[in-house]
């Protein structure tokens, strides 16, 4: 049993070296862009350091000591991912990030299973990474891309879902919206999609870092996420899928480590998951992701989710104070059904200008379309400002944000 560590954002700050250093203008770093990428605790940085200093070696084939140690650590990281998400190790395929995981499915499963006249159903909330691969697959195959609509508050409209599911082969939906923070009812979507025989891919890039996720219980056919958004290094993510599907699926990239036997004119492939991991893996980064998950596990994902609900609630309250001055808050505005991110605009100050002014005060937020251009277009927003939270944030960070917004209002005379 791992001992759970009680925490609040303030107590965790010291685990994150980047948060300890002042900005170039001598300000406290207020990092509110974790939906883009999270900061890394010392433990993860140490894991990378130790790997390169003590046992860096190529994996799976080396007979010598450090190669065995590297292989064990890499496979142990895979087991850590599996346990964390309630699946079996052999069904965890390491990729660079969620984007590669989704594209892997679009190429390997999609090319064989989506044909002319088929329908792929996604939602209007999707990140480009869970939209463009399907748009292009449908173009290539003469298939139809259909959308689950979203209401003005960023909630999926599921009333007509059964209607929309007609003829659908694959549903691909985000678990949590990166722009609005909406937590989608993916259990329900999966259940109803399975009822008509459709496969379901869940984009978990914004869910795995913030919520307790059990992929086996969800019963998703495919589940994708990125390590860098959950305290892990850049360069590592995973696709998790049902074993039978992985067994049947064509490989994606071809090369070293994913083969069984190779002749000049014939080839057979390695077992799942190795047949999907061609070439030298991001070994250090995978091992680092394992450490990130250990860190989160010690906090407890329920506690992480509760912490973020608290931050969302506090941020919504404080932002509401500025509504009379022209601040507009988007999305569900309900801490219980959102997570991690709040989008807003402030009077006629463009989001980029807000972000620049906040930057001078050490506050990092994101401004723009958040890789959800069609959603922005539909909502009629040319850009939004987004503040997003994680384990190391606290009420002080949100207070700093509010003060920064007030400064921006003064500068822009709103």
């Amino acid at each position: 049993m791992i001992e759970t560590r009680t925490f609040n954002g303030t107590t965790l700050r010291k685990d994150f070296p980047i948060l300890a250093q002042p900005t170039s203008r001598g300000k406290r770093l207020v990092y509110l862009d974790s939906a883009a990428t999270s900061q890394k605790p010392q433990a993860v940085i140490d894991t990378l350091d130790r790997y390169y200093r003590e046992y860096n070696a190529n994996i799976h084939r080396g007979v010598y000591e450090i190669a065995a140690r590297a292989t064990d650590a890499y496979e142990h990281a895979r087991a850590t991912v599996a346990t964390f998400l309630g699946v079996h190790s052999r069904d965890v395929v390491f990729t660079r990030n969620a984007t590669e995981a989704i594209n892997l499915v679009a190429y390997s499963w999609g090319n064989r299973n989506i044909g002319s006249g088929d329908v792929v159903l996604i939602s209007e909330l999707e990140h480009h990474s869970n939209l463009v691969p399907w748009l292009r697959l449908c173009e290539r195959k003469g298939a139809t891309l259909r959308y689950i609509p979203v209401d003005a508050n960023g909630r999926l409209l599921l009333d007509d879902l059964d209607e929309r599911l007609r003829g659908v082969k694959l549903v691909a939906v985000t678990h949590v919206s990166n722009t609005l923070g909406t937590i989608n009812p993916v259990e329900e979507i999966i259940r109803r999609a399975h009822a008509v025989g459709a496969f379901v891919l869940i984009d978990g890039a914004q869910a795995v870092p913030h919520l307790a996720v059990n992929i086996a219980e969800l019963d998703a056919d495919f589940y994708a996420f990125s390590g860098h958004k959950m305290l892990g290094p850049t360069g590592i993510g995973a696709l998790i899928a049902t074993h039978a599907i992985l067994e049947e699926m064509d490989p994606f990239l071809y090369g070293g480590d994913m083969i069984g036997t190779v002749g000049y004119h014939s080839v057979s492939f390695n077992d799942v998951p190795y047949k999907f991991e061609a070439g030298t893996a991001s070994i250090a980064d995978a091992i680092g992701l394992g450490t990130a998950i250990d860190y989160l596990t010690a906090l407890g994902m329920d506690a992480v989710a509760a912490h973020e609900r608290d931050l969302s609630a506090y941020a919504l309250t404080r932002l509401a104070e500025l509504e009379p001055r022209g601040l507009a808050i988007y999305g569900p505005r309900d801490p219980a059904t959102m997570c991690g991110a709040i989008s807003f605009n402030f009077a006629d100050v463009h989001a980029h200008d807000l972000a620049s002014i906040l930057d001078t005060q050490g506050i990092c937020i994101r401004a723009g379309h958040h890789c959800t251009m069609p959603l922005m277009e539909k909502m009629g927003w040319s850009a939004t400002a987004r503040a997003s939270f994680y384990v190391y944030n606290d009420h002080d960070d949100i207070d700093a944000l509010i003060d920064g917004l007030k400064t921006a209002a003064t500068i822009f005379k709103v």
Partner: protein
Amino acid sequence: MDDFYRDYILEHYRNPHNFGKLDAPTATAEQTNPLCGDRIRMDLLVGDDGLVADVRFSGKGCAISQASASMLTDEIRGKTLEEVARLGKDVILENVGIGISPTRMKCAMLGLRVLKSAAIGSIASWPDEDA
């Protein structure tokens, strides 16, 4: 950066000069800043003398992109298309003053890039990449 938002910048942002479209432009171009989605269109009218007789810009974006486009349009009447095509980033930097952060440079240069594209008749590279 905060001192970048001086009164005349905000003035151009809120009341941009030469804003709108031309009915029958000689040359036109429209582009999006891929980094933020901001979009600017520039319409040019060239007279029989080969000189820019009129200019309009339209689009949506931040104070930096809108104000620099607005100030730019004030300056190009009477130039030849060749002169417009040769404009460098210095014209923008002189207009908006110093203090623009590197991350926002593409915002400041968007109007210039679109204007040069209109003049050249193809997509111009980012003015800050010419350096």
